[in-house]
């Protein structure tokens, strides 16, 4: 009788497919995963503590470094939380600009997801196709804020500047080309037999488990629960738009991929509606230069980020600095199911699971 031993293998923190400084300690039995332990904290920058030493406005650039793949979403969440704390009204045009930028960020983030899933499974070309299209979004960010990746475009009470002339044709042609792009992804990535074999039935996340762990965002919707903060607890002007919440059936890697591709389409819908309805006017309301949070006042604001429910919890201090800022990072919560869905699978499935849970380590480690 041959005796076999379990052995551990460290995936990360320096590894091509861990999307940053993620460390997964895999307990292996040959190629079969018996356990996967997630170690976090390699990209900890103590963002929450930094916030306490900064004024409310000064923290905006830090917020965009939480989820650097969808730069406008964390900044949007943060400024909306501050507006809630201060009771600041946002001008109408800025609301629409925010929606457009947020949805563009969501598309950009999902494009990175689709591309990085493809490259994590070994299909290098898929990545390039997604990045080609993401590039157009980054160009639009550059037009509006001068920054491509970490655009600190949101401001308390509005946005930093109005949309430039050249932005509109760029975004319209992007929306127009989107069905063609999605056909390409479906042909090259989603439709590929090998990719389907590696994603279908892999990393199944049951809806009750997902709810128990607090998983949110596309990962939860892939498990079949139509929960989206944009519908469940609309923020900004999201109740004015007509869009669907795509849901999956099995909660496996394939569903997580398909749901995101469908979300790209829905985001395109929202952008199209926002462009039609957008009024003229100011992009930044009359907001006092010095923002002071009322002492002891607490607010919690949540938005639907591309990774899930992104929450900001602020406590005022009576000064220009907040007393405490806490970020409810969806990546952090979502990563916690990784051991659960990886057990019993193969080593290669861990890679697919990490890629489809779509963690951003900047956000989960903060």
């Amino acid at each position: 009788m041959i005796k076999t031993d379990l052995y551990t293998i460290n995936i990360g923190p320096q590894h091509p497919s861990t999307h940053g400084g993620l460390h997964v300690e895999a307990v292996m039995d040959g190629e079969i995963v018996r356990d996967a332990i997630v170690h976090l904290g390699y990209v900890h920058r103590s963002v929450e503590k930094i916030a306490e030493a900064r004024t409310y406005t000064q923290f905006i650039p830090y917020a965009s470094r939480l989820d650097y793949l969808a730069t406008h979403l964390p900044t949007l969440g943060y400024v909306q939380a501050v507006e809630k704390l201060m009771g600041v009204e946002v001008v109408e045009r800025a609301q629409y600009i925010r929606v457009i930028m947020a949805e563009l960020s969501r598309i950009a983030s999902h494009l990175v997801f689709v591309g990085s899933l493809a490259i994590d499974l070994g299909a290098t070309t898929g990545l390039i196709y997604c990045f080609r299209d993401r590039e157009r979004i980054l160009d639009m960010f550059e037009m509006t804020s001068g920054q491509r990746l970490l655009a600190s475009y949101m401001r308390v009470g509005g946005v930093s500047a109005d949309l430039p002339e050249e932005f509109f044709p760029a975004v319209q042609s992007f929306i127009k080309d989107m069905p063609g792009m999605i056909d390409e992804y479906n042909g090259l990535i989603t439709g590929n037999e090998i990719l389907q074999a590696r994603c279908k039935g892999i990393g199944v996340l049951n809806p009750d488990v997902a709810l128990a762990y607090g998983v949110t965002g596309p990962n939860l919707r892939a498990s079949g629960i139509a929960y989206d903060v944009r519908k469940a607890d609309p923020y900004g002007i999201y109740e004015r738009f007509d869009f669907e919440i795509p849901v999956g059936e099995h909660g496996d890697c394939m569903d997580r991929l398909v749901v995101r591709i469908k979300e790209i389409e829905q985001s395109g819908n929202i952008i199209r509606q926002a462009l039609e309805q957008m009024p003229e006017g100011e992009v930044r309301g009359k907001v006092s230069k010095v923002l002071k949070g009322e002492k002891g006042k607490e607010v919690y604001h949540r938005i639907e980020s591309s990774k899930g429910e992104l929450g900001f919890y602020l406590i005022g201090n009576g000064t220009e600095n907040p007393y405490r800022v806490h970020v409810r990072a969806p990546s952090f919560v979502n990563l916690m199911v990784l051991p659960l869905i990886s057990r019993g699978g193969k080593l290669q499935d861990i890679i697919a699971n990490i890629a489809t849970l779509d963690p951003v380590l900047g956000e989960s480690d903060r």
Partner: protein
Amino acid sequence: MENLILNIAHILTSWLVSLGIPALWADLILLILQWTCIVMIITLNVLVLIWLERKVSGFMQLRLGPNRLGPFGCFQTIADTLKLLTKEDIIPAKADKLIFMTAPMFFIIVAVLLYAVIPMGKDMTVVDLNVGLFYFISVGSLSTICILMAGWGSNNKWSLLGAMRSVAQMVSYEIPLAFSLLGIVMIAGSLNLSDIVAAQHKLWFIIMQPVAFVTYFIAATAELNRGPFDMPEAEQELTAGAYTEYTGMRWALFFLAEYTNLVAVSALASTLFLGGWLGPWLPSWIWIIIKTYLVMLVFMWLKWTFPRIRMDHLMSFSWKILIPVSLVNIIITGGGILFFKGMGW
């Protein structure tokens, strides 16, 4: 043109004999010269191939590929080779040093040995073995041992995992590879590669044996450790698998050997299925180069399109699909031969 290289060889031999060297020694010197030529051609060809692979992948991925160094970036690989040559040769402290250091050398030796039997043109085989195909398959399977040596010697879990995968993969894909070639041997009635080429002067074997060609192609991709079957390397999972701990020129030797294998397997594919050096107008040795490069382009196309298959799927694909299909192919081929012989063709 047709006999250009052969004539050079004849002139050299007669010159050596005229110097008063015995004929046996002259042949031996010529053999050494032939091997030197092959090794040089392999090395230079790999430089071209790496450049080509980058350009092809760039073309497929909407980018330019190397374009800075020289016209169309063709000196890029030379610069890379220089970089690799000057890099530090790191040997892990806990590595099994002898095995670790010799693995890349054995790998490249095995890869070069494959060229002994490949007909590079009409009457241009280094060693015209009458069991050439058998030799090719048996020597080709030796490369598994070298990868296992690299994986074991590195004393790294990733490397060992990559090596184990490689062994499992090669053992499973060796069988459909050999089976897919059996049909050709049955039709040609010979294991000698020159005879097999000669048997195709009317009809290429890709038309008579299309199923065998497909199974050979898939099995060969797995044998080559190329995408979508690049299990031992598996950059995204195993960092670099068996080659994780290798640096500088030792790593480059693996790289060189993989491309050498690629050329050898493509040359074999064009010899067995695409009529080898047979072709109109051009000299025979140009035809085989053209065909080999076409086959290699298909290999590159596959690599840059498909995701990596999962290990267990890979095994079950071999045992459940490829082997039965190639067995059925052999039976049908046998039946066909009997039928046509009975018809008196």
